């Protein structure tokens, strides 16, 4: 009995000791984790490169080095273990340790910021507020400083906009932006009929229905409405015009395109920002915007537009189109030719643009990569980015192996030269489009776009002999404009003016559905006037002034 009790006690002791040991281990492993980041943090105190001896322009080192890179996109799939990554490591000696957040809410990013513990590279959306925080907190190297010191050749390689259009208020550039569509790009894209790609926003119409009524002209809003009415008399249950605009109340800024287009994409040429003399005004005041709401209101009152467009999630939107439940819809060229499930002999066709169709691209690119001052070797870091930005770098990250006899996606060859331009072998490009992510896993191409130069990146995909896209470029090419000066005009949401902007967005969210579905046009327009009056009271004019100030400051910097 006694021995049993004794053994019980010792068992309990053992369990207790075990639990405590576990707890301590938990703590100590925590310490272990934070050790390297501490050393990284002290790295920030190391002399800035300008203080160190001026580097002589010798060949960059290819000693093995490993950099930690934080990619602020939860969906980013690759981890530097594929053939493309191996080739880059062979050439540069650099290995990337890629980490990413679990969800896209900036939680992890903010924790890193508040601890001031950044990795060697940070890759994020160029408009991510975290980038501004890092710049304000003086946590980043400026590109100019590093390039002049260690990689002067980079100036000849980057699109000229990269170091001109993204300056901070101190005149320095703190992040390298990818996918800039600058002068060089636009010229090349026009040459290869590639200005209009599969992501061009368009409207589509169901061909069998359109043919039933004799394929009348639908090139203007009035003709289009008339045709839809005719079709709907024969096909009662179908939605006349369908778009996916359920997300407008979640817009972060009044400058988001969806606010003014209300799901009509580029058809009415309405822009979020309108330049009036030297000032920027909200597109909500423009005549184009009023055309949009008049058109939508007419459509709604004729029963051609239903509330579905402003409620349905993207999944349901896709499903209804695939079912053939709609007569016409707004989407893109790539998704504009779907085959409805109830008639496999027909398909939707991309509609020609209305005369008012206008798309203004700012060509300002997508992601930005920054080098924090905690970087363990800024010299090698900038040289690495310099290599990736070069044509040579694009061969390894995008083009693949040169040759003519295609074996498979992993081995290549992937491209050959046509008239001096790298062009994908049609077999490879077909495989790639069939299974984008599957092929990416095999060869790693098309995924390491941290410094992508749109001309070299998109170039291999361009095929001037594709008659379909030649046609689309003819249809839409003249309706596309580039205007980089309006890029990046967004207000900081945490400032008083940012709060005003958010209030106006919320006010708008309580108005636009009432405007669209008002019982007639005059009611719609008086609701619109009421909205503008209330928005002005909240401070729309101040928001516009803030935009104008940013605009002026930006353009003075360039």
């Amino acid at each position, binding site marked *: 009995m006694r021995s049993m009790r004794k053994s019980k006690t010792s068992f309990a002791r053992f369990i*207790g000791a075990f*639990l405590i040991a576990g707890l301590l281990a938990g703590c100590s492993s925590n310490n272990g984790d934070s050790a390297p980041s501490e050393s990284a943090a002290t790295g920030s105190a190391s002399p800035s490169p300008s203080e160190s001896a001026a580097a002589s322009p010798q060949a960059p080192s290819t000693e093995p080095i490993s950099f930690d890179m934080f990619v602020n996109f939860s969906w980013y799939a690759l981890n530097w273990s594929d053939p493309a990554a191996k080739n880059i490591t062979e050439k540069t000696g650099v290995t990337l340790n890629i980490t990413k957040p679990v969800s896209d809410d900036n939680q992890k990013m*903010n924790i890193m910021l508040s601890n*001031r513990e950044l990795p060697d590279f940070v890759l994020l959306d160029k408009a991510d507020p975290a980038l501004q925080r890092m710049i304000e907190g003086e946590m980043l190297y400026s590109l100019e400083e590093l390039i002049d010191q260690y990689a002067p050749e980079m100036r000849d390689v980057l699109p000229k906009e990269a170091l001109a259009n993204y300056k901070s208020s101190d005149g320095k550039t703190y992040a390298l932006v990818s996918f800039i569509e600058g002068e060089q790009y636009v010229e090349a894209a026009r040459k290869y009929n590639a200005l209009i790609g599969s992501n061009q926003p368009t409207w589509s119409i169901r061909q069998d229905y359109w043919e039933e009524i004799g394929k009348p002209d639908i090139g203007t809003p009035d003709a289009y409405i008339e045709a839809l009415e005719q079709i709907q008399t024969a096909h009662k249950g179908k939605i006349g015009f369908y778009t996916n605009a359920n997300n407008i109340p979640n817009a972060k800024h009044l400058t988001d395109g969806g606010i003014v287009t209300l799901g009509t994409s580029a058809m009415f040429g309405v822009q979020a920002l309108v330049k009036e003399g030297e000032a920027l005004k909200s597109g909500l005041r423009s005549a184009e915007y009023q055309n949009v709401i008049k058109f939508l209101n007419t459509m709604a009152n004729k029963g051609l537009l239903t*509330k579905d467009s*402003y*409620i*349905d999630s993207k999944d349901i939107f896709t499903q209804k189109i695939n079912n053939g439940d709609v007569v016409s819809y707004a989407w893109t060229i790539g998704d504009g030719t779907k085959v409805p499930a109830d008639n496999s002999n027909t398909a939707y066709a991309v509609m020609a643009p209305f005369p008012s169709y206008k798309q203004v691209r700012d060509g300002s690119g997508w992601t930005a990569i920054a080098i924090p001052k905690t970087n363990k070797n800024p010299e090698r870091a900038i040289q690495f980015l310099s290599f990736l930005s070069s044509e040579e770098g694009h061969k390894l990250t995008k083009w693949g192996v040169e040759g003519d006899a295609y074996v498979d996606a992993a081995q290549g060859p992937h491209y050959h030269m046509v008239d001096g331009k790298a062009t994908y072998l049609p077999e490879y490009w077909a495989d790639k489009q069939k299974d984008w992510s599957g092929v990416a896993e095999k060869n790693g191409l098309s995924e390491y776009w941290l410094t992508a130069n749109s001309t070299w990146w998109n170039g291999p995909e361009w095929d001037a002999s594709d008659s379909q896209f030649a046609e689309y470029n003819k249809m839409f090419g003249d309706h596309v404009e580039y205007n980089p000066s309006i890029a990046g005009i967004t207000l900081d949401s945490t400032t008083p003016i940012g709060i005003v902007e958010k209030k106006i967005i919320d006010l708008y969210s309580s108005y636009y*559905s009432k405007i669209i579905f008002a019982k007639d046009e005059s009611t719609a327009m008086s609701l619109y006037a009421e909205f503008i009056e209330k928005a002005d009271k909240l401070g729309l004019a101040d928001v516009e002034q803030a935009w104008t100030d940013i605009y002026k400051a930006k353009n003075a910097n360039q």
Partner: protein
Amino acid sequence: MHPRKIKTSRGWDNQLILQLMLLPALLTLLIFSYLPMFGIVIAFKDYNVLDGLFGGAWVGFDHFREMFGDERFHSALRNTLAMSSIKLVVTFLAPVLFALILNELPLARFKKWTQTLTTLPHFLSYVIIATLTMIFLDPKGIVNGLLQSLGLTNGPIEFLAEPGHFWTLGASLDLWQETGWGAIIYLAAITGINTEIYEAAKVDGAGRLRTIWHINLPAIRSAIMVLLILNIGSLIYGGSNFNQSYLLGNVFNRDTSYVLGYYTLDNGLLQMRYAFATAVDLFQSCISLVLLLAANWTAKKINGSNIF
């Protein structure tokens, strides 16, 4: 050596081990529940991520003033309280009834199946529930088709586009999702009743309803009270309110679907205004605490079955 002394020292020895085993749980509570509470200070500060919790200037009650002066906050507060109250009324007693009925089912296998099937919805992700809801309640969806073919309605009912339907919809979804799950605790309490009591009741000539009234209900009364108090305490957070608002809310039903959880997310977290989000949440916590204490106090006054 005095025998008694040995006993106490051994008792202490045992106690020490047992207390140490409790330590990890206490530390976890301290680290993850109490220490973070310190973060509440940012509700009174001009907080910036870079400055951390200790940086930033004190702004007193500025965030609260902004909150109370904001029309959207008032509409969110109204919607939250209305939706939670409707849900409390509609869904609170359902699990009790369901448990009592389930307990009376004669076929054990049928009972098990029913219980499994009604518990399942609780484990579905709300994104799935919302998508299914949208598909079924579409103007051309299955529910409207059924209603129209039965001649119950003329045109389709716009369940999601009509602000007047949102609260009922929310409560119905809760009823469907949580009734089976909520019944588990009551079923457990009923199962624990000594069978001799039933036999005694039978001998005394009690029928089914009488047995339920005099034996089953009193057995679960304390569980009902505890859950009621907790439910009242969380009225201002309102369980599924946020999910429903975020996933089923749209521009048409915004007047009734905009709740506090959404307000906090939309104007606080998504705008990176963490201090403001903290202020709104602190307000909710305070109201919640008051409600909880009031409900507890009332329960104590009425029949003595309070939590603390």
